[in-house]
Each structure stands twice: as C-alpha cells, then as structure tokens.
C-alpha cells in the first residue's frame, strides 16, 4: 500500500484545497451537502436485500419524483454494439433497463477522481431525479480505477462485492465514495468502507469487504477497466451517451446535466 509521505502530502494538499473551496461555497450560500452523518442525504441509503440475488431490476429508491428502478443489466440489451457496453451484462444501472428509455448514459469513473465527484454531485444526481425516475434515461456505472489505484481499486472491488448482493447498496456506496472522497486513503479504504456499508446499507460490511480483500471480484473490476480501455477512455469521468440505443458521442470530464440532456435530445 502507498503510505509514503508524498502520498500523505497529496491528501493534505487536496484537503486544504477542498476546505478552501467549501469555505468559498459557504460564503456564497451554496453549501448544500453535509456528508458526515450516518446516511446524510445519500438517496440510496438503506439498500441491501439481505443477500438477495441481484438478477434484474429488483430494488427501488426515491427518485425525487417517484420510485426509481435500480438493477443490473441482463444478458440482452437494446444498446448498439460499442466498446463502452462490452460485457455490460451484470453492470449496475438505475432508470429503465439500458436502451429501453430514450437515453442511456454509461459512465466510467474513478472513485478518487475529483471531477468524477463533481459529475456525481452536479449531473448524475439530476439524471437520477429528472430523467431516470421518469423513465427517460438510464444511468450505468462502470468503475475505472486508473488514477489513484491504491485507493480506488480496492474501492471498486468493494463496489463489485456490494453489487453482487444489492444494486441499490452498490449505488449507496458509489455516492458515499464520491461524497466523502477525501476521507478515503489507501490506508483505510477497506476499514472505512466496512463501517459505511454497515451504516448505509443492510449488508454485512465485514463480509463484503472480506470478499473484496480476497480478490473474489478482481475479475469484475478488470472487466470494466478493459471495456473502458477498449472504448478509448483516457481520463475520468469518461461518459458515453446513447440515444434510442444508438451511440451518439462521448465526453471526458464533468459534463453538465444540460449538455447530457442536449446530447440525448431530451
């Protein structure tokens, strides 16, 4: 693991910058997020199906305007063949099944990437409440731990182990990793994940983390990485946009909700 002083310095600098940014946002009256509470405003919190299998859409969450369908992609989808949807079966999504709504967003994200956190907070949240809950668009998450793999690769393994038990709990942990991104380091990603799994979901955090540590889901992590690389993703977030099942374009960076909506013609 990376315990070097340089790594700790990087975290310290990032925390300092984040503190400055939060301070400015607070002054501007834009501070909305807590993040330190047990579940905070995590819309997926409470998920976990007691170990229930996650085949097909099986859980729901409040989508802001109604129930939000959450599930894993089945063997067949209505999406056109594209490298970004390679091995899509078993991947987590919310909204209508991929390709069945007008728009589909496939995002490759690194849990340690600050622009992914911005994308999650500013864009994915609005996709959830304004497009997915109404059945207009689907959001598919794919882990892409390439930037700071000493932290994000274990986090992605935990996500895969969580997904195996509950797609809703998986999205609760995705939101957790991005909301409290600076709280996670290579030193404590497993321990903190276990704690937060126990707080945010009904799952047994120790069992999930044990599976991740044992490498039981390394192949699943690698599947996403291989798909991202095949699709040409070189930075995160890498966002692939489909309309009526056909690939339209991709973007690198924290694409705004308006740009996503415009690209999808919604």
């Amino acid at each position, binding site marked *: 693991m*990376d315990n*070097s002083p*340089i*790594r700790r*310095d*990087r975290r*310290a*600098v*990032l925390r300092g*910058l984040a503190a400055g*940014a939060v301070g400015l946002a607070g002054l501007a009256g834009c501070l909305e997020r807590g993040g330190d509470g047990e579940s905070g405003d995590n819309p997926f919190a409470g998920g976990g199906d007691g170990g229930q299998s996650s085949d097909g859409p099986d859980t729901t969450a409040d989508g802001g305007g109604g129930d939000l369908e959450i599930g894993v992609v089945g063997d067949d989808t209505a999406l056109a063949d594209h490298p970004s949807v390679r091995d899509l079966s078993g991947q987590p999504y919310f909204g209508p099944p991929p390709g069945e709504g007008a728009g589909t967003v496939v995002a490759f994200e*690194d849990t340690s*990437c*600050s*622009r*992914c956190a*911005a994308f999650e907070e*500013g*864009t994915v949240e609005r996709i959830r409440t304004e497009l997915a809950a109404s059945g207009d668009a689907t959001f598919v998450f794919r882990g892409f731990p*390439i*930037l*700071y793999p*000493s932290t994000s690769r274990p986090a992605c393994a935990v996500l895969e182990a969580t997904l195996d038990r509950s797609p809703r709990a998986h999205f609760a942990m995705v939101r957790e990793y991005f909301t409290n991104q600076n709280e996670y380091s290579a030193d404590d990603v497993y321990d903190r994940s276990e704690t937060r799994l126990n707080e945010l979901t009904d799952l047994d955090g120790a069992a999930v983390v044990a599976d991740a540590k044992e490498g039981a889901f390394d192949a699943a992590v690698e599947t996403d990485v291989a798909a991202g690389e095949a699709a040409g993703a*070189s*930075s*995160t*977030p890498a966002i692939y946009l489909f309309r009526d099942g056909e690939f*339209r*374009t*991709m*973007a*690198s*960076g*924290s*694409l*705004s909700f*308006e*740009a996503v909506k*415009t*690209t999808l*013609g919604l």
Partner: protein
Amino acid sequence: MSVARSLTLPTSTRDWRTLGRTLRLVLTIPRYAVGALVGAGAAMTLFVLTQNLQFARFALTGSGLTLEDRLTLLGELYPFVGTIYGPAFSVALVVLAGLVGANLTLTAYHVREHGLSGGESAGGLVGVTLATLGSGCAACGAALLSGVLSLVGAAGLVTALPLDGLEVAIVAGGVLLLSMHWIAQGLRGGRINGCPVDI
C-alpha cells in the same frame, strides 16, 4: 544580441519589469493586441479540443441539433462556460492561454523586427506542448500524463503529484514566461512603437 545573453534566467525585478514593459509596448500596437487575443483563443481551443475532439465533432456535425444546441455543447468544452474543468484548472487554462497568446505576439513582433534565435522559439514551443499536456490533466486526465510517464517507466510518479497534475500546467506557465523573458531580452536596447524598451 547574442544567444548567450538572451538565454539568461530572469533573476531580478528588473528582468520582470523589462518583460512587462516589453509586452505592454507590443500590445499597444493594435494588430499585435488582436493577434494576442486570437492566439490566446486558439490556444484555449487547442487545449480543450485535445480533450474532447469526439464531443466537439458531434456538436458541430451531429444530426438533430439546433444552432442553440450546438453552441451549448461547444461552450461546454470551455472552462467557466461548461463544467468539465474544476476551478483551479479553469484558472490555469485561462492563464496558460493568455501566456501563449502573449508569447505568440512577442514572437511575431521579434521575428518581424529582428529575426529570432532557435532558443527563443524553442522555449515557446516547449511551453505550448506542456500547456497542452497540462490541460490534459484538467479533467482528471492525470491518466494522460501517466501514459506519457509510462513511456519512460515512471507511470506511478503521477500519484505522487500533490495537485493532481496541475503541476504540469504550472511548469508550462514557467516555460512560457521564460520564453517571453528571452524574447524581451532580445529586444532590449531597441524601441517599440516609438518607446524605448529599457527602463
């Protein structure tokens, strides 16, 4: 002016004041001021297009988009207009684009009036290259830098960067400033727009 004299490092306040005065005098000439703005805009466009060429192509040629849609999507690519870049990198990109514009206009003036040495022009080229690479780190594109570093067997080095790759943009800014300093040194002793360069 010998190359050896012009390729010194800016070590004194006087050097920086000379650079500032040289740039200010050149920018008082309207065509060079316009050239600097165009150069800065072109540099910014280069930076953002290298990150999202496919998205830009869709914005320009995608079917079913209105003109307003196209402008919305193209605007999305630029810092402060869209949300692709965070605040720190947005500022860095604007500063770098401004420095490239200033560098280009100083270079153009020097070439037209005095010719240009290899060292002076190479500095600007290195600066633009680093600035483009720096822009690649702006969207969590440290992976891009990782790819470059991996060519020399140092891919892991990027995880040691405390500013998530902003360091490259800072180095690029330094190289651009150095290049401009060299050009300004080359113009010392002369006059720009009727005014003496030397303070």
